[in-house]
């Protein structure tokens, strides 16, 4: 039965439809895989009992030839999505045993389409981190290792999602991306991760980190699987004022579509001091692959790229400092009683939030303070406009951009935890798409000399997921990345 965990989502859905196996069977196989891989710490909460119940319901539907686009497929949900009656933590202690009485729009869409939810996946606390080490529930371990070496991080903040997908614990997982939190862990774990255009996936019911940047998307093992999942997750939602009311193109159809004549831009600014040679080489390889598929390569400049990371680390913490004010111990979650109201606030928040979250709240509070607002927040917003303009100019010359996803492969647990600036550099190639609201995807492309996966990133025009999927799919075919991590955890 364990073979069933090796299937792609696409193959599993086809097998379910053809009644080659049941949803209960494939769900059980994944539950076993989850239990075997407990050491990876990918889940915060498992919900296997209910998963089997939904699998039975899916089987009943499938038996009648009914069912939605995800019918019977066991999937994982990042613990940032509120799920009705299932504990939702956002990777933080402060929410305690919070069980929402509501379902996020994205997970509701997936349930409508027949998803079987295995549980809630580990993540950096409030999605703040690039290594999954800031989780109050312990770090997630990357299934990939250098030889028999030390534990590596899976990236973050969607580290649980990436590890679970890479280790065949689920057929796919939801994730969220504020500065790279889908694409960087995808790159670190040899998986595919997509951040769609801002507004494609409703933010309703997703615990907010930085509202103007947060966007949900899938992590899967293939580009096609991402197409299937994103098609279900996305959609206009009147409950989110920033939701986009435009039809999503047929993403599955976009996969495998010819990219002949497509213009691929290579931004010269996407390189960094100290970046491993292998990443530079892989980027060149990617260019050749796309050329071999008939794409035309053009060199473009995105001159304000160097300001993206500083601007991001002003805007995101500013919004977060305000978004996280509601965790005050008054209505839900943990409360630490103090001598008076303000003492209670301080104790609750000092004990409830971890170090990185506290750091970002303080940065955000600082940049919004009277006298600093203009110099930081307002300036960062101007930079944001400049970055969006850079992209607009690039789209006059090309249809999509090819860049590395990250400046490095996965690193060891603990190595960068106490060096926030180095940690923040992980986002350097991914934040621009968030700041400009553009769709972007990381595709696994090769292993480095240490045997660790590296990803390449495709960035597209706003609302042009079709091109992003077509280019990514071409890249995926050329790269033919079939390596899997050794199951050392079994």
């Amino acid at each position, binding site marked *: 039965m364990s073979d069933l965990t090796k299937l792609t989502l696409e193959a599993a859905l086809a097998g379910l439809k053809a009644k080659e196996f049941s949803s209960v069977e494939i769900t059980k196989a994944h539950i076993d895989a989850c239990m075997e891989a407990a050491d990876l710490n990918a889940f915060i909460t498992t919900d296997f009992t209910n998963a089997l119940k939904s699998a039975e319901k899916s089987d009943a539907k499938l038996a009648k030839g009914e069912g939605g686009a995800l019918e019977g497929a066991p999937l994982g949900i990042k613990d940032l*999505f*509120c799920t009705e009656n299932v504990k*939702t933590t*956002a990777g933080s202690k402060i*929410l305690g045993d*919070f069980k*929402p*009485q*509501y379902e*996020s729009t994205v997970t509701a869409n997936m349930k409508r389409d027949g998803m079987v939810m295995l549980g809630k996946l580990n993540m950096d606390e409030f999605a703040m981190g690039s290594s999954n080490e800031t989780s109050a529930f312990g770090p997630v371990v990357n299934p990939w290792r250098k030889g028999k070496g030390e534990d590596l991080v899976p990236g973050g903040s969607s580290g649980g999602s990436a590890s679970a997908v890479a280790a065949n614990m689920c057929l796919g997982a939801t994730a969220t991306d504020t500065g790279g939190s889908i694409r960087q862990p995808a790159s670190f774990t040899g998986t595919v991760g997509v951040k769609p255009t801002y507004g494609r996936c409703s*933010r*309703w*019911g*997703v*615990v*907010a980190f*930085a*509202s*103007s940047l947060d966007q949900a998307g899938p992590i899967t093992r293939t580009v096609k699987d991402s197409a299937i999942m994103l098609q279900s997750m996305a959609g206009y939602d*009147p*409950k*989110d*004022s*920033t939701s986009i009311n435009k039809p999503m193109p047929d993403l599955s159809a976009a996969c495998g579509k010819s990219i002949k004549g497509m213009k691929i831009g290579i931004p010269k600014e996407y390189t960094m001091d100290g970046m491993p040679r292998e990443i530079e080489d892989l980027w060149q390889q990617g260019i050749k692959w796309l050329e071999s598929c008939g794409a035309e390569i053009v060199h473009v400049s995105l001159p304000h790229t160097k300001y993206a990371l500083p601007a991001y680390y002003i805007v995101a913490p*500013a*919004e977060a*400092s*305000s978004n*996280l*004010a*509601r965790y*005050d111990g*008054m*209505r*839900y979650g943990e409360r630490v009683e103090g001598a008076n*109201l*303000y003492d209670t*606030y301080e104790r609750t928040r000092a004990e409830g939030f971890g170090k990185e979250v506290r750091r970002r709240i303080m940065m955000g*509070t600082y940049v*919004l*303070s*009277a006298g600093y*607002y203009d110099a930081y*927040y307002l300036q960062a917003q101007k930079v944001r406009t400049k970055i969006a303009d850079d992209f607009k100019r690039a789209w006059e010359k090309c249809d999509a951009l090819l860049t590395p996803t990250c400046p490095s492969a996965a690193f060891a647990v603990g190595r960068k935890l106490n060096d926030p600036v180095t940690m923040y550099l992980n986002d350097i190639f991914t934040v621009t798409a968030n700041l400009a609201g553009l769709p972007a995807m990381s595709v696994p492309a090769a292993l480095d000399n240490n045997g660790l996966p590296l990803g390449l990133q495709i960035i597209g025009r706003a609302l042009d997921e079709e091109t992003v999927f077509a280019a990514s799919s071409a890249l995926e075919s050329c790269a033919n990345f079939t390596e899997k991590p050794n199951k050392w955890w079994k």
Partner: protein
Amino acid sequence: MFTAKRIADQKHWLSGRDHDWEVIIGLEVHAQVASKSKLFSGAATEYGAEPNTQVSLVDAAMPGMLPVVNEFCIEQAVRTGLGLSAKINLYSRFDRKNYFYPDLPQGYQISQFEFPIVGEGEIEIEPEDGEAVIVGIERLHLEQDAGKSIHDLSPDDTFVDLNRSGVCLMEIVSKPDMRSPEEASAYVEKLRGIVRALGTCDGDMEKGNLRADVNVSVRKPGGELGTRCEIKNVNSMRFIRQAINYEARRQIDILESGGEIDQETRLFDNAKGETRTMRSKEDAHDYRYFPDPDLLPINITQAFVDGIKADLPELPDARKARFVADYGIPAYDAGILTADKAKGDFYERLVSAEGAKNRDAKIAANWMMGDLFGALNKANIDLDDSPVNSDALGELLDLIGDKTISGKIAKDVFEKMFAGEGGADEIVERDGLKQVTDMGAIEKMVGNVIDANPDQAAKVADNPRLIGFFVGQVMKSSGGKANPQAVNEILRKKLGL
């Protein structure tokens, strides 16, 4: 240095040790938008519900919840802006005002800081004791109300009711254009009349649906502006005047004893009639305003504004002019009767209802402003709940009009009507109050009175003013029912005047 141009009328100057003082007042009025649901959620806004029964997930700031603007509220803000002759901003934006308090679940209030929906405007006020004054409107913006902290249910605990959390308020900010407590309350009265006429706010101050933050400073008449203090949440016209009087005097006392005014936020103690410190400048919050990233900017079109404009009801000033022109009543009366929509509607029903053709407009106005408002005030009843409605009062006016009863008897009848004893016809019939117009009967009564007072009758030729005595006696003997004009005529004839 900025000096506010207008100098108060001397009669409003406050006397001081070395020189007089002038008080400068600006107001921030919070008017609750008359909307069935909240500004960013579908929860109900009805007053008086059980605590925490009108709270949506958004109002309680549950994780992942997002605000969606209630377009009805946007429309009401525009309508109000037009009623204040103010500039409507086609682009406006919601910002977050960040601070921690248990009755503020999000940890921020969604408000409009940098780009309010309504800009500058003005209204004309007519304080009872002075000339008309133009008060400038600085801006009107939309914001969420907070919940309510209840401190007096338990000695140790504070309870929080979130029913108000997220209710839509319009904050209407005046320029510092008022110079006396009377002007300030006249301004609020006028504003209240306008929003009620527009239907954008019910103006109910007792329920807190209209309340004012009062900014007060004092200066040498015409001199540089002083440091101001803000008195929060004053919720009646009388308290507004009291608070200003107290606060101005407090500031003068400090300045005259060589002190300085601390810019601070103060509370008004209704019971003691005093203001006291709530927050000093050092404790002032840094609200860290920034645009709310959960909401898109509000872009409205001129066509939308024009549509609302075309649909505006008659406003108090226009109605006042019409009352003067159409009913021929004095401007003063028209002003009082149109200050509030309910009053104007009552009056119009009284004088222009079916069958009201013969009612005298001035007499009708007098009855409303005198007896009716007097009785309502005394009983502390709203006009809308008056036990004597416009039909009932009209019935009484008709009895005066056709001389069935005298004006004097009518006052007694009114009191009985107000006490719930029945309609005017009914009471007059029951108590036999119909005016006696039978000349024979009156002649008889006059004869009796003259016969009973021979001494006075003899003197009347020399002192014609004694006729008043005879009139009084005859009226008394008729129980007030004799027609006074007829009595007068017959007396003059019989006494040979």
